[in-house]
């Protein structure tokens, strides 16, 4: 009996290896270039997940907001720490033995220019090189075998508040990166670099120049300082040869500088802020765009990851992009042309707009500017708050179940006209906001299973704290994610029921990954509680800080031998 069982197991393993090459690696940030965070690795199942145990762990050498999503190529796992990154590690994915460590020298003042903490979300790996974006706004290429720096290219001046926190998108020999910033009137751009030399190939501004198409959507010369920073990760569709990036909110905060100070926005939509743009990776040209939040006044960045699926739309299998936007709406767009196919609120209580008009693609804002902050006019109880219905923590998509697993947020805000900050010896304009309001129901976050075809909730695990971690979906019907209390959980994808959990001792924001080496499946997650988010959440932030200390470690799990 025993013998028979082990025989069956071995052949099952072999079958897995033969049929699902993609199940072995985790070659890119989102698992694949469509950011689905779905794995066909099938050893860990609902039946055995309760036996998961730590295989090895790695101290990252930096505390504070560790947000790295590892990449696994061959038998090597690449992971970064926060603070620069302070460290980039290449380790054996099976044993955790470190192959090399790269610790770049960063200027000491970068912390002071990083608006939203000193995070690093990981690396990109391609053709024997590792590419890492740094807080000093450089992209470095390292030898994947030795960690030796091959080239380093400055993308922009970090001292204007532009830091790089996310890995670039690799398309053949082109490395594409954006950067953060905006408070000082930085104009967003995507930049293409030559993978071999680091030489800049093209640079596409994400707001139009004077006289260019789209410039009519800006008042006066405001486009040249208009924001639209593409600071998170891109997606790539090889069949269409298009790279997709989301862009940030418009700058400055005061909408009156960029157009009308009301919901009657007229021509002043402020392209391409709070949008998705599709670009040709060969030359950086913008092929199409879709704007989530025209003439933004809420700081609803449109940067959240763009997840690919092939969904039946009116009976036809259609290549789509799915995005759970900060503005609280879940969007399904045609990946070929940016046409809006459907949109629905994916959290309760969204009230800045009542719906998205499918014909025009525009939000229908709540009447009488009730929820639009204006100059010297406070709008109260706006939901969601500026962290959004979902922040950067990635969702995952299971194509077998056709379900998306979204780490949601449930916070509201008051936001008003003009607040003057006196910094660098000058008055600057900020918005005065109170973000500390719980959304309807009193929970502050949680993972939601969402049917993107029906645009409907399937189940929802509420979280009493915000900033629930990103998700991983597997073909065996599991969903993995962490939370601020440090719990790392495996859920049943159909019901949301918790099947297993492990406490990492510090909060988890980033989504886990999974990979297979020599026929054995591993699950890996970086733990290290967010530090900057509690700082803006008042009493809620105090509860987040009290939940776990800061930390910085990678945990890797396996089934017992």
């Amino acid at each position: 009996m025993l013998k028979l069982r082990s025989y069956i197991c071995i052949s099952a393993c072999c079958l897995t290896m033969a049929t699902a090459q993609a199940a072995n690696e985790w070659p890119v940030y989102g698992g694949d270039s469509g950011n689905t965070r779905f794995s066909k690795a099938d050893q860990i199942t609902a039946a055995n997940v309760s036996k998961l145990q730590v295989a090895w762990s790695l101290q990252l050498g930096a505390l504070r907001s560790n947000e790295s999503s590892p990449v696994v190529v061959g038998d090597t796992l690449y992971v970064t720490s926060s603070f620069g990154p302070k460290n980039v590690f290449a380790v054996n994915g099976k044993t955790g033995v470190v192959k090399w460590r790269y610790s770049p020298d960063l200027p000491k003042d970068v912390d002071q220019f990083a608006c939203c903490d000193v995070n690093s979300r990981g690396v990109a790996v391609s053709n024997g090189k590792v590419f890492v974006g740094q807080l000093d706004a450089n992209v470095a290429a390292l030898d994947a075998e030795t960690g030796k720096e091959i080239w380093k290219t400055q993308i922009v001046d970090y001292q204007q508040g532009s830091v790089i926190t996310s890995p670039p998108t690799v398309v053949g020999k082109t490395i594409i990166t954006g950067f953060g910033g905006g408070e000082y009137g930085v104009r967003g751009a995507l930049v293409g670099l030559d993978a071999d030399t680091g030489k800049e190939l093209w640079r596409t501004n994400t707001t139009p120049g004077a006289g260019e198409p789209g410039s009519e959507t800006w008042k006066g010369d405001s486009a040249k300082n208009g924001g639209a920073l593409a600071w998170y990760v891109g997606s790539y569709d090889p069949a269409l040869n298009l790279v997709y990036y989301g862009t940030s909110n418009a700058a400055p905060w005061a909408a009156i500088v960029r157009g009308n100070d009301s919901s009657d926005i007229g021509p002043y939509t402020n392209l391409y802020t709070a949008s998705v743009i599709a670009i040709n990776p060969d030359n950086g040209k913008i092929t199409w765009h879709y704007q989530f939040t025209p003439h933004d006044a809420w700081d609803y960045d449109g940067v959240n990851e763009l997840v690919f699926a092939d969904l039946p739309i009116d009976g036809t299998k259609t290549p789509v992009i799915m995005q759970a936007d900060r503005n609280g709406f879940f969007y399904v767009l045609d990946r070929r042309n940016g046409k809006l196919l459907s949109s629905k609120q994916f959290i309760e209580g969204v009230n800045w707009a009542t719906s998205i008009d499918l014909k025009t693609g525009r939000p229908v804002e709540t009447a009488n500017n009730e929820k639009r902050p204006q100059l010297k006019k406070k709008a109260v109880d706006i939901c969601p708050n500026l962290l959004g219905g979902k922040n950067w923590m990635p969702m995952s998509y299971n194509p077998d179940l056709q379900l998306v697993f979204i780490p949601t947020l449930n916070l509201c805000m008051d936001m008003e006209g003009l607040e003057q900050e006196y910094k660098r010896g000058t008055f600057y304009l900020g918005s005065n906001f109170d973000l500390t309001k719980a959304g309807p129901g009193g929970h502050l976050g949680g993972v939601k299973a969402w049917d993107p075809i029906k645009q409907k909730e399937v189940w929802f695990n509420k979280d009493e704290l915000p900033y629930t971690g990103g998700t991983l979906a597997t073909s065996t019907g599991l969903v993995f994610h962490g939370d601020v209390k440090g719990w790392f959980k495996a859920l049943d994808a159909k019901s949301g029921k918790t099947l297993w959990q492990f406490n990492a001792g510090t909060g988890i924001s980033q989504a886990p990954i999974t990979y297979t080496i020599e026929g054995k499946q591993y699950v890996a997650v970086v733990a290290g509680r967010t530090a900057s988010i509690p700082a803006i959440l008042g009493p809620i932030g105090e509860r987040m800080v009290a939940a776990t200390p800061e930390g910085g470690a990678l945990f890797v799990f396996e089934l017992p031998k």
Partner: protein
Amino acid sequence: MTKPCRALGFAAIVLASMSIMGAGTARAIADPSSAAVGARDGTNINGVMRVCADPDDLPFSHAGTPAQGIYADVAELVASRLEMQPEYYWWLSVAQKKALRNTLLAGNCDAYFALPPSAATRQISISKPFMTVSYAIVADRGFAYQSLTSLRDKRVAVQFGTPPQILLAQAEGIKTFTVRTSKEGLESLSHGDVDVAFLWGPEAGYLNAQRFNSQWQVTPVKGEGLQTEIGIAVRAEDQDLLQKLNTALDDLKPQIEGVSRKYAMPAGAPVQTALNDSGAAAAELAKPTQFETTSETKVAADDASQHAATAAPTTAPSAAPAPPAPTLSVEEARSFFNNHCSHCHAPNAQSPIQERDLRRLSKRYKDKWRDVATTTIKKGRTELGMPTWEDILTDQDIQNVLVFLETIQKN
């Protein structure tokens, strides 16, 4: 190599925390590192006023040896009034709340330069104001600015993210040209891209004197969000310190006016500026004398009479006194370094611990590394285990250390 080094670093930290908790009088002489630690043990030692300011924000403050700028000069005046020495903790004020969290509220200093009275919170008190700062209209000397109406049909440079940008966005008939910095604003004026620039007065006045030969007239304005008084911020619980500062500031009024002149702050009665102000009402406030005070010679003369300690023959803020010339050869300097610093920074400064590896200074601090090194050697970083050396090493010694460090920078 790393073991003894770590052990020593740890000892220094322990000593530092002991003296913070305890007597504060313990001042071992035999061991240079512990003596230095004893000299700088927290907030209560007489003689030190721990000041936080932005390291790169002229005309207000600039990290260097000595520190420069309006805030540094005022800090110097106030400290000396209270028989103390200012000691700086530098943090960029790019984001005000983050800066306060990491400086004053983290206990890294006791006096934060500077904030408007409106910035007072439950945690932060602000001293009596010592200065008024405002936005200003920069234009050719003949241009009589009386109200926003004066800007009609003019091309006006305005700084991104500032109250004038909002004001002009609401006004009719003014063609704005957005700039990111005051410097860019003055340059666009200089190139003839604009007729007028509506900029932050202290920067515009300073740059006008420094780089543009005081060729423009810089007229301060007032109105909602356009001007403020500023004072020194302290933690709300430090009421004793607040009182002392208030008294000192009262006594120092004439000297502080001298500081304003030294840095060419816009002077004269500010012109009321708002959307609906008529030119006539504003004109009443504008006395003809208001435009006269930024001339170069006057700045220097006043400076010399009222602020003799830092008087300079030009309007330039007093240059740092030249450090003493080094007296050692590179080889002698290396040996000096190894005798004094190698037990923590490793022989020849080649520490395998990245934070202590002094070969990386120029990479980390760029062209400011010499200033940073000088300040750090003098003042230490007790929270990281680096003692203060200013009572042990002379300026000459420190220059000698730099001679060696210069030769080993990895670029």
